[in-house]
């Protein structure tokens, strides 16, 4: 799985010259905590047939978090007598934003993005594509510009996890023990499911012990598992479905 499959692409952004009060309103209105700061840059591309097309690209300038705004607000109340006579609401985004130097590209793997988020203690990463520019100008970084294409947050990762567990699709769950990591029962189950036209919502072969899966959890899109369970019994495949009432039940 790569970042572009799970990132948020409908973005709410601010420009460096917006006021903090505007940013604070946006954060409150949409109930999130990060705003990418972008500067719209127009490029002129020359196409083959001498046609020129104009594109407006959002070039990433930085990231503004709700924490930055809190900081500005509290500094504003503490330092009433210094140079900053301006109330925090009127200060510009440019003054408080971070440069957001940790960025990922759309093709970064989700695992790598997750690792960066956790290692750096971040909640959010901008996803950028570097575009070459024709002419060099001040804002360019070595002749390229970072065009913002998305944002990936911890929520996106959690939703991706839930989705890959098949949790958003109606289905039931079956657990199959895999003795000694032997995947044959799982393979047989999947063949049977396909034969009986039962959709498989997700397959997880876990937990692992020394790299070997001990059990597989399969989510099946059916309300009526009986035919499948009968076939499983005929093939002598063990399974767990619901908490079977056992005699020696002691976890109370």
């Amino acid at each position, binding site marked *: 799985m790569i970042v572009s499959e799970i990132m948020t692409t409908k973005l709410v952004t601010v420009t460096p010259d917006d006021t903090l009060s505007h940013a604070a309103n946006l954060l409150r209105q949409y109930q999130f905590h990060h705003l990418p700061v972008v500067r719209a840059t127009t490029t002129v591309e020359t196409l083959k047939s001498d046609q020129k097309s104009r594109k407006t690209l959002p070039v990433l300038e930085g990231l503004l978090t709700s924490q930055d705004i809190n900081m500005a607000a509290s500094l504003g109340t503490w330092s009433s007598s210094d140079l900053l006579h301006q109330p925090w609401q009127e200060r510009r985004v440019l003054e408080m934003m971070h440069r957001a130097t940790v960025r990922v590209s759309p093709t970064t793997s989700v695992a790598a993005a997750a690792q960066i988020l956790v290692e750096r203690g971040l909640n959010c990463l901008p996803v950028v594509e570097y575009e070459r520019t024709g002419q060099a100008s001040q804002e360019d970084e070595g002749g390229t510009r970072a065009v913002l294409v998305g944002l990936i947050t911890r929520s996106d990762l959690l939703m991706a996890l839930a989705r890959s567990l098949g949790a958003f699709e109606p289905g039931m769950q079956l657990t199959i023990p895999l003795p000694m990591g032997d995947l044959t029962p799982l393979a047989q189950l999947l063949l049977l499911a396909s034969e009986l036209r039962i959709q498989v919502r997700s397959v997880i072969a876990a937990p692992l012990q020394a790299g070997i899966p001990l059990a597989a959890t399969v989510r099946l*899109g059916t309300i009526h*598992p*009986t035919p499948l369970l009968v076939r499983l019994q005929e093939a002598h495949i063990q399974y767990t479905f619901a*908490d079977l009432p056992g005699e020696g039940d002691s976890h109370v």
Partner: protein
Amino acid sequence: MSEVKANSRARLVYDPAELDYNFGPEHPLQPGRINALIDLLETCGLWRRTGEDSLLPLRAATVEELSQAHTSDYIAAVQTLSTPGSSKAESDERQLLAIKYGFADGDTPALPRMHDVCAHIAGGSLVALSAVMGLPAGGAFSSEDERPLHVFHPGGGLHHAWAERASGFCIYNDISVAIANVLRASEAKILYIDFDAHHGDGVQRAFYDDPRVMTVSLHETGRYLFPGTGDVLELGNGLGRGYSVNVPLEPFTEDDSYTEAIESLLSPLVISFAPDVIVTQHGCDTHAWDPLTHLSLTLRGIQAQITLAHQLAHTYCQGRWVALGGGGYDLYRVVPRAWSMVWAEMSDQALPEHLPDAWVERWRPVWSSVEDQEAAAQQVMGKAPAPTNFPTSFQDRPEDFPAQPRRWSISRANRHTVSLVRHLVVPSSVRQAFPAARSQSPLAGLFDLLHLRGSATPSRSKTLETPAGALLLRDFCPPSLVERLTVDEGLHAFARLPEREHQLLLSIARRPDCALTLAHTPAGRIAGEVTLAPGDEWWEGLENVYEVAIEVSSNWRGFGVGRNLLAFALELDALEDIILYAMGLSWHWDTEGLGLNFYRYRELIARLFASQGFVEYPTTEPNVKMEPANIFLARVGKRVDQRVVSQFFNHLLSTPNLAQL
């Protein structure tokens, strides 16, 4: 055939067209069950299909009506798949449609004419609900007395269908279609109770953010069972937060635990939501013999659910009640008996003790032909084998249902789930009026506990002068006093209607372990209340912990009534011997009426209680944890035993581990 003496205001919706909802001979859902039901009703003389006073004719729902609950591309796809394709290219296209809209698997295969058949079923539920609500779509009746009050539609209840997908044997969601059309045509609030063993996911999805529809689903937990959703924390979204209620019960729940769950939850939910009509789905796959599920009820539990639904409709909705069918896959032994009970309850007729011999003779062979399959299904689902006889009485024989080995731990887990739900969705004053069954009963009434040093007067009173006139404050109000008073219109935060609030106050006053303090005008209008009750289930095991709740009518705000009333209510001898707590839950706050935002309101509450020495504490109490604006305040008396105090603070931040219970 004997004369039918049914209550003339109950009707049954039935049309032979519904029997074409047939997925083939191998499918677990068979229209034969409806046939068996109708046959049983007629053989017992409970209902006649020719009787104008007992049959409500149905019509097909129009595409326009269906589109209130389904997307138009889905309806178009169902229509396309209803007719057989001809060419090869067409069949590939049909395959794509089938995959996209949920017809590709064995559960819900596409049927010829399915649009037509399902539109009839949806129309049946639509007519039923509209007729009960007195809307034109329900047909014309010569007088108000002719209009049916209860309607049963055994062919309905297809609760798994989504707006844009067929799922779990359901194509059009007749429940959502009926409710959505009634919402469009009237201002009604609708309570939907789903008794099916599977979670009512389609209906919940359809109204997840709508505060006018409360969906309540009692089902076997989705840990393993289809559709996997229906957790307690699925509470609704946006404005609809708190209007989706889910009670996931353990596998092998059995009658007693089930009855306890429905009785402690449904009444408080109905009173706090104040619906205009109740729609119930009586899927009887909850029965122990059902091949698809594990709830292990008998007809005793199912009868309790039906009786309760009827009673709730009469107590709170002027009798308006629509009952629907639903799941139920022990087709001939359970479904006809269970749904005859629905009809008998609805039409005030008594069921005979024994099933008619003629009926048993007709349907026993039908069952025998599938008996082996049923036995195999019981076995692969990990259930004890069902007895191999065909029932001859309406009620189940207890000896056919051996007790489950883990009964104690299962009912304990269910009790925990129910108290979590009560916490999350039932406002505290309503909860106090409907106490859950407690393991330890209080030895003495709260009055004695709070007057340890003995008090001469049974209840104190005091006059409070306000700019709007004088108010009488009175504590330990007896029911006789509450009966004479009326409730101010502005007092509606908890029960939402003044007359309901009055009922609520009465039931609090009647309880020996609750204390009710009222502020009322000399003319007898109640302007404010403070209730004091033992901490509910979450605090079980802690002594001397009491919950305080306060409400002041919106017409009496700003005169310091709240502060004075609270101070008066807490002038107790035993104040220093007990721990008091109060919870402020933002979804009960009348922020609009006061023009405050949630955080300002929160401050207001904190200041009000701080005036009586309450301090705010962080807590993991599930209600408070739901929203950052919620607040928990407590006041620990000076003479409270140190051991109890530390228990209390430990409990505040404890994490109840549901899996361990």
